[in-house]
């Protein structure tokens, strides 16, 4: 009896069970904490972002309609006027991102195809590693590169074409930098989905007499299109939310819609970073409202793209 009790007693079992319960609760609370941050983010930015429109602690409130449709960041002096507007920022952000996609989508899909199907094994490894490294380069370095290399090139091109440009800080520079940053995101996912297309489709196409490139372009890429689309959605998310690199090359203009590729522009994110070091009060707090708008734009873009994706996918099934 004494020997057994050394190993297992009711007491020791109870202690072990209690230990289990405590540890499980610690793990559970960690998980709850991890999961709650997304809700905290939404709630706090919502509260802080809505305050400039309703709170009485400011000189005057920002008008929501004017804010969303304004084509000038601030009409009046900082700290006195509350006539903020982000309408032009929303449009400019969308334009910048769309142009960046024109650059990154073809490059990414073809790179994905090349890595997945065309490149010999060793070349494939090199390309894959480079794409992974590109993905790991911090955005600030893309900003340095954009300001140091792309902006001067764009300035020269603009000069040759007879456009005014502010040292190369422009819509097209911003789009190129964003395009470079989204290439790895879209490429990795495109490659995966092209590689996982059923072999039968490929072989069938080749057996019917299509050439390898015809098969790749007309069978493999269309078959992988839902995966490619998912990659594009991710890329758009990254481009919309990118801040520091954009703030360095966009030129940070204060007002107006920009369609001229050589003109300076500004996006929601670049606006949020501008002058952050020396600002307080409403001029600081309004950044939360801009952040709120940014979140809404990203969510809306995701919803629209997912709807499109579903439609495209359905067509595929028929």
């Amino acid at each position, binding site marked *: 009896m004494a020997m057994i009790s050394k190993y297992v007693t009711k007491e020791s079992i109870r202690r*072990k069970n209690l230990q*289990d319960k405590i*540890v*499980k609760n*610690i*793990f559970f609370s*960690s*998980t*709850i904490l*991890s*999961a*709650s*941050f*997304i809700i*905290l*983010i939404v709630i*706090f*930015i919502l509260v*802080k972002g809505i305050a400039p429109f309703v709170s009485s602690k400011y000189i005057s409130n920002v008008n929501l309609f004017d804010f969303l449709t304004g084509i000038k960041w601030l009409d009046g002096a900082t700290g006195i006027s509350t006539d903020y507007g982000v309408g032009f920022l929303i449009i400019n952000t969308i334009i910048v991102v769309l142009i960046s996609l024109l650059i990154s989508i073809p*490059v990414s899909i073809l*790179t994905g195809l*090349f*890595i997945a199907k*065309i490149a010999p094994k060793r070349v494939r490894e090199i*390309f894959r590693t*480079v*794409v*992974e*490294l*590109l993905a*790991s*380069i*911090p*955005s*600030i*370095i*893309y900003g*340095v*590169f954009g*300001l*140091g*290399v792309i902006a001067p090139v764009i300035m020269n091109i603009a000069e040759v074409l007879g456009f005014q440009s502010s040292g190369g800080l422009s819509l097209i520079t911003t789009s190129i930098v964003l395009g470079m940053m989204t*290439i790895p995101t879209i*490429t990795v996912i495109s490659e995966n989905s092209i590689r996982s297309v059923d072999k039968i489709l490929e072989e069938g196409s080749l057996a019917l007499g299509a*050439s390898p*490139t015809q098969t790749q372009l007309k069978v493999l890429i269309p078959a992988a299109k839902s995966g490619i689309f998912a990659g594009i959605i991710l890329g758009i*998310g990254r481009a*919309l939310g*990118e*801040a*520091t690199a954009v703030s*360095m090359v966009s030129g940070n203009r204060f007002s107006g819609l920009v369609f001229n590729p050589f003109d300076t522009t500004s996006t929601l*994110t670049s606006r949020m*970073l501008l002058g*952050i*070091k020396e600002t307080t009060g409403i001029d600081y707090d309004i*950044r*939360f409202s801009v*952040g709120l708008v*940014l979140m809404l734009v990203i969510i809306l873009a995701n919803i629209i793209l997912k709807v499109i994706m579903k439609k495209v996918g359905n067509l595929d099934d028929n």
Partner: protein
Amino acid sequence: MIISDRKLKARRRKDNSVKGIILSFSSVGLLVFASILIYIFKTGGGLVGYDLLISDYQDFNTDVIVNEVSGDFTYSSTLDDDEYYSNKWDVVLTDTKDREGKDIVVISYIGENSPLRDVSDLNSIVDSGFVRVNIPINSSVDSIILDDYDFIAFSKFGAETMVDIMNMGTSIDSMTLVKEGGGIRGSLITTLYLIGLTLVIAVPIGVFSAIYINEYARKNKLTKYMKTMIDMLTGVPSIIFGLMGAAIFIPFVNGTIGTSGGSIISGALTMAVILLPVIIKSTEEALKVIPFDIRTASLSLGANQTQTTFKVILPSAIPGIMTGILLGIGRIIGESAALIYAIGASIKDKVILKERSTTLAVHIWTAMSGDRPNFELASAISIIILGAVIILNIIAKILVKRVSKVSY
């Protein structure tokens, strides 16, 4: 219908040209990567060095006066060829070159009891007299005026002559010191602090969450929702995390620890949230490949679930956790937008956890976003950041391969 030879040839030609187009598009990534490397090495390569890492950011530029001395000190170490010791002032002057290659004389050693430990700044006077300053080691000595202009030493004489002249005098009326700033020591230390503090917060929470989801959680709606919510964090742009830091953590840290405004602590809390999904994901990956049998074997041997988790499951998951940590460190080093909000963007030489500072990445942003962007410094820091991030990613990749190769 038979395809003619000519048609086949034409098709092959077309095929090859399409292939060429695909190849040229594919090389864009390669080109971008190569140009980034070439640019930052060409612009900042000359600046990268030990000197940059240990130098302060602020310039030190001042005239000092030293009261009379009659000391006779000794120097315990041996002197190099270009080092000269003054036994009267207990300092070592060294001939050297500055970053631009000009000959300068620097103070490379100041003795424990040296009169130069107790100097007054000639340019800042308060009611009680001159303000005391500390002479930073390696500040360059431009000129020394001794004993009412009886002796004057200039740096162009070289260190040996300067020491000789210094030894003749008994008081320094004016010594002009310059210490070139532009270093990144403060930002480097901040980055290291931030990495340490963030990991201390994020790793336990992340690993525990992953264990709960993988080992304990029932397959119910709550678990599914929690998993989705953690996944959603990966899609949040870093500037939104910055807003979160400003809205939640800065007030929280202000209230609990008593800081004012952003601090390294609030930055670490913000970064911890950014890292959570990374650490949870890679821990989960490692937990998933551990076979179910091992768990049941441990339980059937009489271990309770806690013992099984900590003594059987967790040790096997360590490579996965390490992967998460390495990727996380890379993320901290490269992060800029979130930290501009959560810590601030003013470069500091004296790093205090409860105050604002900049990490290396934010240092770049500050250096570039002024009126005169400093491309050399930005590129030099970029080289350091890129080197660190690439090494971390390569090690993480090797670890991942090892995790997936483990056979039980």
